[in-house]
């Protein structure tokens, strides 16, 4: 095809793109994927029966604040990486804040309980499945982000895959809080984070293949 014909064909369809379209598209991808994950929790795992009571307690919000803040930072990084000439990614250092805060809470927990209870606190009742459930629930959100990227232009595909995986994992963990009844900071710091890191790692592995354009 002649280049001038191509230009004319392309210009037949020039929809307006509003300011902030990129951000909205990423958030739409996360939101759509998140809805699917939420549906999976509702139908497959069930919400924790004491959800209403838990929402009046500290542990629920501790978990929620941890995973949601990781998710927000990861989404911000994903938005940056969706441009072909990404702005600096120094904001990723913010991830250290929730991790350190939760680690501090974990140390506080250990100080309050006798050493023989530490192991039970750390492993909880679901350490074997928690990371895998978080990873599974992150898949629809990652898929939503793949849809977002179809109109965007990431050029650092591995980093973008990792950021998208991190965002998907952290958002999945945030939703998983509606099911999981574990209350220990140590548990969340280890097993939730493991699920999130697995999602980020898989994203980094799959990024160059899935995000290519």
């Amino acid at each position, binding site marked *: *095809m002649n*280049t*001038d014909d*191509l*230009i*004319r064909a*392309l*210009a*037949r369809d*020039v*929809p*307006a*793109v509003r*300011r902030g*379209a*990129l951000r909205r*598209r990423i958030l739409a991808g996360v939101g759509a994927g998140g809805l699917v994950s939420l549906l999976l929790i509702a139908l497959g795992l069930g919400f924790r029966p004491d959800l209403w009571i838990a929402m009046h307690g500290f542990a629920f919000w501790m978990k929620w604040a941890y995973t949601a803040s990781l998710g927000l930072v990861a989404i911000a990084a994903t938005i940056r990486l*969706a*441009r*072909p*000439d990404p702005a*600096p990614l*120094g904001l990723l250092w913010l991830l250290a804040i929730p991790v350190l805060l939760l680690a501090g809470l974990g140390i506080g927990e250990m100080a309050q309980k006798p050493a023989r209870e530490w192991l039970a606190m750390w492993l909880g009742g679901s350490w074997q499945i928690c990371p895998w459930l978080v990873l599974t629930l992150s898949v629809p959100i990652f898929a939503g982000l793949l849809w977002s990227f179809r*109109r*965007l*232009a990431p*050029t650092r595909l591995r980093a973008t895959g990792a950021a998208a995986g991190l965002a998907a994992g952290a958002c999945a963990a945030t939703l998983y809080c509606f099911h999981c009844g574990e209350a220990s900071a140590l548990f969340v710091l280890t097993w939730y984070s493991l699920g999130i890191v697995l999602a980020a790692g898989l994203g980094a592995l799959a990024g160059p293949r899935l995000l*290519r*354009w």
Partner: protein
Amino acid sequence: MQASEEQLRAWMTGGLDGDAAAHIALLRALTPMLRGFYRRRLRGAEDDIEDLVQETLIAVHTRRASYDRDRPFVAWLYAIARYRMIDHLRRRRVTVPVEALDEILVSEGFEDAASARVDIARLLAGLSPKQARAIQDTHIEGLSIAEAAAAARIGESDVKVSVHRGMKALAARIRGVRP
């Protein structure tokens, strides 16, 4: 005649607002720019270059939501062109060094858009007079060490040390300016 950053940006913004005429003007102006860009870097068949130009125009069109109106247009354009070129080379399993975006912007004549542009006089002013002169003479005027030493009436090793320390100080300053 190459369109200026301001002109291209105005067309791009017009296209983003839904103005098809501005969008056509943009894509037409980009075509020779991209041809030049790929011709200078790929000594391949003309067909390959035209394919790459078309692929890049399609990417500019379908992925225009990734442009931030508050940032330079040509940096965005050449970042896309660079990515398309790397992808093209990868498909061919060819490895060649590809310049960084900053260097591309300078070599394509968009120095202002490259945040890498450094005001040499301003930077040199921050050094001691001896270091500034040694760098000015050897690196900018192109004198040899011996000539620079004679001109400044100092020893050759003094010139070398001044250049070395001055360059180190400059590098540290530039890193501080653009982290």
